[in-house]
């Protein structure tokens, strides 16, 4: 492997990691941006997405499309759960102190984590890569698995779709308006509660989808929820909480810093990320593309 192909391979692996993180962190950022709640349980939705996908694959067997049905089904199931949680639990918390919201989402992490353990046990689970995407292609002498390519293409596609929906649709305008001034929006006759539920459902869908799609690359284990939430937080802090493109940028930076960090600090690659986050917090506490909170 020449130097160039090695650099290329590293950037591809960074890009794959980035697109996964974007899928997950965008939901976290969206909930914060609109609902003003830091949802610790977002990682739990990601974990439930992974377990649900595993469960559906168990039911369907290994057909050519079962993985895709499982991924979509898992994301929809998690979205539904997210909707229920928002409607019956979260709605009681709006306007309360942030500490209560934090405690509540943290309690949700613990409770749902134990529920998952009761249902699926502690043994690690695994899903194969979907048929058709099992191979790899050689680019500039670097091996690039098809599945990684798929993820790299899916990330920007979702980002663009999202951006389009936020900018050009009626619901998107309401969501942006709610992020700026929820009282006025409510006074104008928009059903803010329904809007919040919708946003939460969408964010949970993204988290669940991220969890389902990561299963061909990672083991499904208890504890995967808390691992990912830390990474997602770092991404949104770097990019700017509540900023859509900031999350995208934060994820890209995270992936590349992690990939190339090991060349310079082989044993402290994670350190580079946190150093970067600390630098961002000192220089621009609201994140690279975020807006200062009033």
């Amino acid at each position, binding site marked *: 492997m020449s130097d160039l192909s*090695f650099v290329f391979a590293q950037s591809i692996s*960074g890009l794959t990691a980035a697109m996964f993180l974007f899928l997950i962190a965008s939901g976290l950022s969206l909930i914060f941006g609109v609902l003003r709640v830091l949802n610790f349980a977002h990682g739990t939705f990601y974990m439930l997405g992974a377990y649900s996908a595993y469960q559906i694959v168990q039911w369907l067997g290994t057909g050519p499309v079962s993985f895709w049905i499982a991924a979509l089904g898992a994301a929809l199931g998690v979205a539904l759960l997210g909707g229920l949680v928002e409607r019956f639990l979260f709605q009681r918390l709006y306007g309360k102190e942030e500490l209560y919201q934090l405690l509540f989402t943290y309690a949700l992490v613990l409770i749902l984590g134990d529920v998952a353990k009761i249902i699926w046990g502690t043994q690690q689970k695994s899903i194969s890569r979907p048929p058709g995407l099992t191979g*790899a292609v050689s680019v500039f002498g670097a091996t690039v698995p098809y599945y990684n390519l798929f993820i790299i293409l899916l990330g920007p596609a979702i980002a663009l779709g999202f951006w389009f929906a936020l900018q050009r649709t009626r619901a998107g305008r309401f969501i942006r308006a709610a992020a700026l001034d929820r009282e006025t929006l409510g006074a104008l006759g928009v059903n803010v509660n329904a809007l919040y539920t919708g946003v939460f459902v969408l964010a949970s869908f993204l988290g669940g989808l991220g969890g389902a799609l990561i299963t061909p690359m*990672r083991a499904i*284990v208890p504890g995967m929820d808390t691992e990912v939430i830390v990474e997602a937080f770092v991404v949104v802090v770097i990019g700017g909480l509540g900023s859509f493109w900031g999350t995208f940028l934060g994820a890209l930076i995270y992936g590349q810093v992690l990939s190339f960090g090991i060349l310079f600090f082989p044993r402290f690659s994670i350190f580079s990320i946190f150093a970067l986050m600390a630098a961002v917090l000192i220089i621009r506490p609201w994140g690279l593309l975020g807006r200062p909170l009033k």
Partner: protein
Amino acid sequence: MIRLLTVILAALLALPLAAEAQKPIKVGMPIPLSGPPALFGEPASKGAQMYVEEINAKGGVLGRKLELVIRDSKADANEAVRVARELILKENVDFLVGTLTSAEGPAVSVVAKENKIVFIAPIPKTDQLTAADKLHPYVFRVAANTTMEGRSAAEIVAKWPVTKIATIAFDYAYGQDVTKAFVEHIKKIKPGVEIVDQQWPKLGEQDYNPFINAQMAKKPEAIVSSIWGGFFVTYSKQAKALGVFDAVKYNFIGLGEAGSPETTKSMGADYPVGIWGNSYDAFYWDESSPAHREYTARISKFLKDEYPSSWAVQGYIGMQFLVEAIKKANSVEADKVSKALLGLSVDTPVGKLTIREKDHQANRGQLYGKTVKDAKYPFPIMKPVTYVDPTKFMD
């Protein structure tokens, strides 16, 4: 009349004494029951539980029942210490058998020393647990240690037609120690080898792609991994996608129980069949003793699993050593039991094991083998599977 009263009085006085003798012997078990390490902690605790139930059914030990008090140590050294203290102070346990990670083991060892409580570690492998400067009269290990595991791997890899070797291990006690033991031993027994690359992801890393790319850029002919348990599933999925196993022609050995039935079972067809792995136990280890086959049947029934976990046996053996030592000492006093454990040999399901006097370490070897597909099972197994007895290279 007075005589009768005296007899009654004496009987009444003796009652609490008799009750004292009937009080169960309490054994505290701090072990991870949550998070990824629960994969091993849970079955290990079940193995100990089965042994306790079996002993109690036979009337217990020294006429007293055994009582196992299991607590979640969360695979965290601080939590393990807190739980161990609570077991000693609140639950008044007589002994400690437990801990899993190489961070928890040495931490709880300190608590055992302070409280003069015999502590048997069934799983932590770090050499530091029984190293000369850390050793004290109350700590014992029935797990393999990093020296034994690293050297066992070196003995195997030395036979491969390769000279350029790379290693990948988590950057903490276990990963560092086992890699060091491997490198030192292979350089000794096969001086021509060259370690071309070493990768040190953080414990619990989820994205191995950058590490794999960096490693493969150095063109190794063989890879020695100690990415353990569920983490190995994640690692090997990503390594397989990047063509690692083909590139090294399956000259790959996964330490940290990458060959265990739990791991191959969870991956099924995705397992990189053809690599070498190791395991504490294997239900399909057919050429083993009748005692092992019988144990396998019992644990299979106890766990209600056709393909029972390979970790249960560690909890089982830990309890076995404790009970045999109590019998030998004919006492539950820590100092007597601790002395009884020195040089104690026990017939375990995996054969006769002995705790050495010099370092309180049992000669616990592990099963090693090349993984193959087997029509009998829906997942790969190690075949032929060999028990590597570490006795000759423990020092």
